[in-house]
């Protein structure tokens, strides 16, 4: 796992594309904000992470499963993600 990078543990082709994204926009890959921006970019633009399925998920559990499967590629922490997501939805959702 040591070759994984950043808060989303990117590796392989996704990591290469992330660096390409940073180069194109002259952003520092080490900055968390850059990594967050790339996560949004990836979900919106890259069908390989099942962005549409994620965006249209009909429940927090489904969204969390998709996010862990396709974005994080790791189900570790799924329960915590679900718990926090409910909290954020209650906090910010109208």
């Amino acid at each position, binding site marked *: 796992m040591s070759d994984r990078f950043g808060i989303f543990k990117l590796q392989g082709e996704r990591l290469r594309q992330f660096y390409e994204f940073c180069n194109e926009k002259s952003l520092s890959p080490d*900055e*968390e*904000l850059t990594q967050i921006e790339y996560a*949004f970019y990836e979900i*919106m633009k890259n069908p390989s992470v099942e962005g549409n399925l994620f965006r249209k998920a009909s429940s927090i559990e489904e969204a969390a499963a998709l*996010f862990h499967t396709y974005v994080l590629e790791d189900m570790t*922490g799924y329960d915590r993600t679900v718990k*926090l*997501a409910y909290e954020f939805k209650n906090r910010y959702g109208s």
Partner: protein
Amino acid sequence: MSELNLFESEFYGDKIRWFIGIVEKVDGDPQTLGRVKVRAFGIHNAYISEIAIDDLPWATVMVPTGVSGTGQSPTGLQNGTMVFGVFLDGKHSQNPVVLGSLPKIESGLVDNITPQQKIKPGKVGTNLGASGTLSNTTPPTRSGSSAGGSGDALYSAGINNGFGSDAAAVMTASIMDRIS
């Protein structure tokens, strides 16, 4: 010594503790003194489930001399404002006073927000601002800032880019959990 034992010393200032935090609530002060609820970085946990907004201490807001502070709050503070202040009771940290607000550098996640979107009463903001959105057609860009994130900004960014509320909440939770 205060009857409420809020001060450790007769000489206020001997053991004060300064803080930087985010305004979480600007209305509802039972004493109508214009006090606000502030979540102080490093002192109050970021998650509402662990420290609810109502459990945060009311912070008196210092106003310029000549301003009575009576009636409608003259402080101008809004939810999401970053503030600097001191706890008069030092380590007990139950008697905060806000001395001023701090300008924030908004990230690209909030570059496209409208004034109406920027203020979202009753919601919580952190160091990205009170609310935000991404462009509907292009990936986020930014003007540059330090790393950090606002749950409110991230959630709004997701919603404004066609995420369902569940997806936006999951995205927000995942990111905030990793950068907190």
